[in-house]
């Protein structure tokens, strides 16, 4: 038995997927969700094998929701019209359904899922999500899970990022949040004019820096508006010097 979850903010769109799925008795829709918030909860509960995911949804979009999921199932994306998202799918050879889609097109997507599922594989989405995170509408914010809640952090509220094992700690006005991602990811997503990787484990919002202080031998500390001190490596200092025109 294959467990599936449909996430779409339009009830009729979900109805159509269910109708098309009627010819696949081995796929069972265990939950339907109206938005990414419900989606995250349902996926944690059910650990599904297959996800039908709309991109444009209220508050957080499909990509942002997927970022919050740790063991991602196979995803069949659905979208009506979003040039950026479609370009991202094409670039990463990720399958997607353009609404309104036909039964035969739908069958093809299921077939692809079945083929991968038999080999115990899923469609990789990490790189797709990285591209999506850099899209204009997503770049301005970071979505994190904190406790049982989902928090949307505007990029402008971030002071600095700190690597913490498999996570990145995001330090803001309102405290710090963990995101299951890598520093390299944020280095790609954030624009160079706003954030600098000053250290292997640190990335700082440029406008937060008030001054640099010499620290031990060959090391520096960046003093931030908030009073925080962030270690700066030798390479980081060279970068900062260029940006701040010291």
């Amino acid at each position: 038995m294959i467990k599936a979850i449909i996430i779409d903010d339009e009830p009729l769109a979900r109805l159509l997927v269910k109708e098309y799925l009627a010819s696949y008795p081995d796929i069972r829709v265990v939950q339907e969700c109206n938005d990414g918030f419900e989606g995250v909860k349902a996926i944690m509960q059910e650990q599904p094998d297959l996800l039908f995911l709309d991109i444009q949804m209220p508050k957080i979009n499909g990509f942002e929701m997927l970022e919050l999921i740790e063991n991602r199932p196979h995803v069949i994306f659905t979208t009506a019209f979003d040039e950026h998202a479609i370009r991202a799918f094409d670039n990463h050879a990720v399958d997607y359904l353009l609404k309104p889609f036909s039964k035969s097109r739908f069958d093809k997507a299921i077939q692809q899922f079945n083929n991968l599922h038999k080999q115990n594989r899923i469609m990789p989405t990490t790189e797709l999500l990285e591209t999506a995170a850099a899209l204009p509408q997503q770049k301005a914010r970071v979505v994190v899970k904190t406790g049982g809640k989902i928090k949307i952090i505007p990029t402008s509220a971030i002071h600095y990022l700190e690597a913490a094992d498999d996570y990145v700690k995001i330090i803001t006005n309102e405290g710090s949040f963990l995101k299951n991602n890598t520093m390299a990811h944020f280095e790609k997503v954030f624009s160079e004019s706003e954030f600098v990787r000053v250290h292997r484990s640190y990335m700082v919002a440029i406008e937060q820096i008030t001054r640099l202080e010499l620290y031990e031998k060959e090391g520096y500390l960046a003093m931030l508006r908030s009073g925080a001190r962030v270690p700066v490596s030798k390479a980081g200092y060279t970068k900062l010097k260029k940006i701040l025109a010291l």
Partner: protein
Amino acid sequence: MSRSLLSSSRNKWIFLICWVVWALAHFGILYGWEMNWQTSATDAMLSNFLLAGACLLIFNNLRFYRPKRYAPLFLLALCLAVTAFWLFLTDLALKFLLPTQDSFISASRPVRFNIGFLLTGCSAMISLLWYHSEEQHDNMQLKLETESIAKDAELYSLRQQLQPHFLFNSLNSISALVGSDPELSRKMIQQLSAFLRGTLNKDDKGNIRLSEELEHLELYLEIEKVRFGHRLQTLIDVQDQDLLIPPMVLQPIVENAIKFGLYDTIGVVSIEISSRREGNDLVITVQNPYDPETADPRKGTGFGLNSIRRRLFLLFSRNDLVTTSYDQSTFKTIVKIPQYDQGNNN
């Protein structure tokens, strides 16, 4: 401004070579006429150097000023004046440099004048042709640019009007309804068609009645209600429906309200549209909820109302016709449509 006739180095060379050839011919004729070579050379170089200057004067004059009326008369007068001036200068200079050739200088004056007049006339003709073709080229370029800008704008507005996201999602809903509720699907196809037809017919044909615009809006809202089920509620309280508004003003405001109030929120939402007359203005208020976590109403006009503000400014020369206000969870757009030109547009 057209390019100068001598702006390309190719033309400069042609100009120079012509004058060298002309001066050599001049020299040849005088020398053949048994003048001594010093006199011939001085005369050829001096006369033609000054004449070249005179022609440059004409080029420049015609570059900056070309008469639209009485052009032949103007050209004739210009060439005569420049030639006379040139002859006067040449006379003075030749008399100074060749004090012994007084009689030759006086005798050749009519011939000099004729030759000078011919050459300045030629220059005037050439430069007129050149600047004319330059002007045409410039105009063509300008026209092409204007056309391409207009085309881009048209494409953009077409796309905006068609709202691909709305259209494809509606079609998807219809596709779903075909299986479960064929009757409703048929109704939705009709509503969507009526809405699209209304959108296509909305070329700028002047003001329309508020009631007409509302009918179009109802279609739109009905479709959204089918798409989003019970989530969308609308409250429409309009008075003075016979008052006039420009087309495509209210529609984008309501679309905006839907975009932030419905597409970007969770749970049941209510969108309110009301209108009333206030003095000479029709005042329309659109109110929608918004999510302060994902939308920031302080950002400029917040919600992309700039193009409507711009349109109304073009129509009424007033900047205060679109105002917005908000609190913790609702956003309000108020648009005023002055009614003073009602008589002209009906």
